[in-house]
């Protein structure tokens, strides 16, 4: 049924819960659906493995400066004396040594390991921030459109269509320098935080549509449910209705789409680097590294391997976790 061998078990357990009909038999506090999901998640070996991996990645990213101290090499330090006349690292596998665990970048001779650690930090930050913002925009717009319907729904739908019709990469390519110019003029120093901010903003502008559509659909389905009418009959306001009544019922799909959006933004950052919108060389990021490394596929495959395997592992872990999360939150769906 699903990827998870544990999940069938968990489901069976829920169905055969002897307390279901007679709550009095057991303790006073019931298990919320969220708690049940958490339980299922904890029993899913894949979820635990991928979750631990993700936490590990996040800790690595957060601890980057500490790792730099321990490792003794900074992300901008160059070791050109370890390069040959063509700027290719000397030694085996792209210059892997005890000092340089993942070898050196060709040309500039910077240490790949420490740059990857810092890149992890940048990429995770961008992806999480973008996913949070897009989820927020998507939830608010989707819930409003779905619940209120009518002309508001039509307008939000149209904006969604419009956003989807705009070629994202092209617009990002055109807007990024424009925005930078507006903020910094032609001479100011552009901080890396700003570059990161622009990227997040670009994602925010284009990334909310799927969440909005998802939430809208879910809200429309819920709108006709009687508990919503019961709330209305009690005279609740719009905010209470959307965020207290409806949202708790759709946070599962939102959470799943969030967990699957994060890896998407990680790879999108790389895609933007590909057309030259990404971050500048000053800020180490996965996107920039993989983009720069691809040129060396034939001459220094190790340079491609390390960022490549790292970004794959990160995205793969997210996807696994997202899948497991979906299974845990919605045992009936077998996605």
């Amino acid at each position, binding site marked *: 049924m699903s990827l998870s061998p544990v999940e069938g078990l968990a489901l069976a357990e829920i169905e055969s819960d002897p*307390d*279901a*009909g007679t*709550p*009095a038999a057991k303790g*006073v*506090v*019931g*298990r*919320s*659906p*969220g708690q049940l999901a958490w339980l299922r998640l904890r029993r899913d070996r894949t979820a635990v493995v991928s979750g631990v991996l993700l936490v590990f990645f996040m800790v690595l990213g957060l601890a980057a400066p500490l790792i730099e101290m321990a490792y003794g090499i900074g992300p901008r330090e160059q070791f050109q004396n370890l390069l040959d006349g063509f700027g290719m690292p000397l030694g085996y596998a792209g210059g892997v040594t005890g000092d340089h665990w993942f070898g050196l970048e060709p040309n500039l001779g910077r240490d790949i390991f420490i740059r990857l650690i810092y890149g992890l930090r940048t990429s995770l930050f961008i992806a999480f921030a973008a996913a949070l913002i897009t989820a927020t925009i998507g939830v608010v717009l989707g819930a409003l459109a779905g619940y209120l319907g009518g002309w508001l729904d039509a307008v939000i739908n149209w904006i969604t269509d419009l956003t989807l019709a705009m070629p994202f990469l092209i617009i990002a390519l055109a807007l990024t320098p424009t925005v930078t110019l507006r903020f910094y003029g032609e001479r100011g120093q552009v901080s890396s935080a700003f570059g990161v901010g622009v990227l997040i903003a670009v994602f925010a502008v284009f990334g909310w549509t799927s969440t909005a559509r998802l939430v809208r659909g879910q809200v429309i389905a819920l709108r006709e*449910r*009687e*508990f919503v*009418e*019961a*709330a*209305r*009959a*009690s*005279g*609740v*306001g719009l905010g*209470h209705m959307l965020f207290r*009544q409806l949202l*708790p*019922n759709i946070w599962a799909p939102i959470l799943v789409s969030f967990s699957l959006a994060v890896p998407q933004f990680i790879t999108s950052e790389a895609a933007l680097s590909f057309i030259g919108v990404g971050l500048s060389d000053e800020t180490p990021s996965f996107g920039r590294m993989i983009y720069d490394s691809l040129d060396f596929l034939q001459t220094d495959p190790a340079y491609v391997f390390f960022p490549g395997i790292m970004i794959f592992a990160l995205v793969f872990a997210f996807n696994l976790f997202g899948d497991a999360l979906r299974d845990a939150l919605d045992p009936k769906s077998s996605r």
Partner: protein
Amino acid sequence: MTDEPLLRVRGLTKHFPVRQGLRATGLVRAVDGLDFDVRPGETLGLVGESGCGKTTTGRMLVRLLEPTSGSIEFDGRDITHAGRRELRPLRQELQIIFQDPYASLNPRHTVGRIVAMPLQVNGIKPPGGIKARVQELLELVGLNPEHYNRYPHEFSGGQRQRIGIARALALRPKLIVADEPVSALDVSIQAQVVNLLRNLQRELGLAFVFIAHDLAVIRHFSQRVAVMYLGRIVEIGDRADIYERPQHPYTRALLSAIPDVTQLGPAGRIRLTGDVPTPLDPPSGCRFRTRCWKAQDICAAEEPALVPRDGGRQSTACHFPEVAAPIFEEVPS
């Protein structure tokens, strides 16, 4: 019972536009001009086949749906088109119980939160705190007050419906619209819930608009009964009159369809032929004429008015009302 009705409904109408493209091409006449009153502490049973507009009527009474025309007066105030703010104080006196106990409780909220919601939303702080009040309500509907922190999925259908009732009672309403409150429950549990409602009515002096398609349940619970067909009331009167001396052919047909152990075989049963006509294009004149065995030309030409008969206790909308003997004896309930 005072003479002043608690709820006074006149000409209540709900039309749903049918859209094709941007233009409305037709109207579903779901409810088409209802008149009735409900006095304090009284139960009005609203009965009819599915699709006759019962539920729409119930939703309009608590203003979940906006009436197309007509008026609803509650406790002397016109609430037909009141906004959310104006309705606020009324919400406390006018509540609804839903049909589906599985859909009517927010699955992500605890029982306590569900029952407390009307209190919190309306900013009511009962003496002793919300929790005490909620637990009191849970006890009132026969639930263990310690289930406060449990989730709906941990309860059975009957228990859930009790939660729904507790929620409706939270604001101490004067009138509760009960929209098929037991039809989704097992028969054994139906009786428990109906009895609960009856007890509550007696204890709290509640008035009910009790919507059901099950004539037996209505008979058990209502003082007065209104029979609906295709968006209109065809007959309204006291329970005894309706059940013992139905004057409208449709009421007769409905009553004869109740399986009756005393009458074996199809002898006295009136079999209605044909389907219920579409409310998109109801028949001219009397709406029941297409399925009525007594229909004459006048039925197509002229719509019968709801005329009081038998000294005003019972009103019937029919050109040829029955005056025959009761179809069966009153059975004390």
